[in-house]
């Protein structure tokens, strides 16, 4: 799923404080799982903004709402009127939702309340970690199910580098060395022979390097 983190409150306040009306708008799927951008968080953020407006004696009407997903047209039906009538929207979606709304409502300013941080999982309650960079050409089948692109800080295809120490990465003792994990998995799978296959040069044209990507189902 997509993981995001709320921006510092002062940065959010700075974006919206000059409007007369702002709709604080949650996105209740991915970023709700990480407790940063769901409809519940939209309500909390709206309350914080109201308090700040009152403290600073700023005249601004703040309402909160939300939908299941801000990245698909059909979910907007029930809030169409609210958004059309809003002077500005503070979206708690990831960068995709913010852009989707900005293109859908051409004349309405849409501000991001979150920094979209990564594609990740929930390894423990409240603990999210990056697992994919959408490189467009998955190699997990040959790396024992551990991604070298997103989990090795040098995205080495023939790792580990010389900085791997006691299972940890050279940049932080809190970060697992991805190639230690690859080797451990290959060993558990009885596939250590695969380690010695030299991985060829990666085709990064399928990554963001090749420009914005899209695909279209012909049958729809």
């Amino acid at each position, binding site marked *: 799923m997509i993981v995001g983190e709320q921006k510092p409150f002062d940065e959010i306040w700075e974006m919206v404080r000059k409007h007369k009306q702002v709709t604080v708008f949650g996105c209740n799927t991915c970023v709700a799982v990480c407790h940063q951008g769901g409809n519940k968080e939209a309500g909390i953020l709206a309350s914080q903004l109201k308090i700040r407006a009152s403290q600073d004696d700023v005249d601004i009407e703040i309402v909160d709402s939300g939908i299941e997903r801000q990245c698909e047209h059909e979910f907007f039906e029930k809030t169409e009127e609210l958004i059309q009538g809003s002077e500005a929207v503070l979206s708690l979606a990831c960068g995709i939702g913010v852009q989707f709304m900005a293109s859908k409502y051409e004349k309405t300013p849409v501000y991001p309340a979150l920094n979209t941080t990564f594609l990740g999982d929930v390894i423990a309650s409240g603990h999210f970690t990056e697992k994919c960079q959408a490189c467009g050409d998955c190699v997990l089948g040959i790396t024992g199910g551990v991604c070298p692109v997103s989990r090795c800080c040098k995205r*080495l295809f023939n790792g580990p*580098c*010389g900085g*791997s120490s006691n299972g940890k990465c050279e940049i932080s003792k809190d970060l697992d060395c991805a190639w230690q994990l690859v080797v451990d998995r290959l060993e558990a799978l009885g596939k250590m022979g695969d*380690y010695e296959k030299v991985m060829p040069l990666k085709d990064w044209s399928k990554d963001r390097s090749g420009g914005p990507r899209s695909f279209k189902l012909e049958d729809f």
Partner: protein
Amino acid sequence: MAVTTITKSNLEKVLKSGYQAVTSECGPPRSSDPAHIIEKGNLIRNHVDSVNITDNQTSVTRLCSLAACIHLKQQGIDPVLQMVVRDRNRIALQSDILGAASFGIHNILCLSGDHQSFGDNPQAQNVFDLDSMQLVQTVRHMRDEGKFISGDEIKVPPSMFVGAAANPFGDPFKIRVPRLAKKVASGAEFIQTQCIYNIDKFEKWMEGVRERGLHEKVYIMAGITPMRSVGMARYLSKNVPGMDVPEELIERLKGVEKNKQSEEGITIAVETIQRLKEVEGVAGFHIMAIEWEEKVPEMVERSGLFPRPQID
């Protein structure tokens, strides 16, 4: 003795003639003045076969490795161009390889490079379009096939002796020999290792290397860095991932008066070289004196590696 070499590299000549080779390295300045690097090169030129020039080591911005290599080449020194894949994509890498070859630089050491978070620009993008093994493959492909990665022809291919690094002390230890095998399979012709302080572990790694006959396929040069003080030993031990400094080495330095510790560090390095000279498969030594180049001649002489062979 006539020896057949692929390139005009002096390092290749010395190694292929059967001598234990000696290389050292110099770090370029954080300045546009080349005087210091030329001076460092001239300090050691008679005591080594080739001189590595580091490529923005520890991710700190410096005068570029290629330009520094050209300065040394103009002094008649055989440079080893260190090239990291951290800062350049495959277009820039191939371009710099051609540029280096055009100045008669005949050695390249292909490296990943330290992560930029260690340097002066932790906010920088990193590139890692290729990894170090893929860079080895690329240089060999350019030299041997006379082709770019794209398959396009190179009219005059670069003539380079191709090296890579190895760290026998990195984890997991069990893949350190297989990893060397991968570098050899990628086309590495010489290897310069991480600084060796844990000699027993290095010898254990070399045993694994010999079991697979890798020492007959690649020239392995043992990395040596003299300790200047007990403080340096402690720092390397605690703060540099992939560096293995045994406690008894720290104790030995601690047992010596402070103003004699650097001398003791040189002695330890000389003893290490002398012991490793006898290890089958050690083809030479790479002395990384880290801003202590003036000590390299003494170390080479005391290790019995002087004079250096002159081969036509």
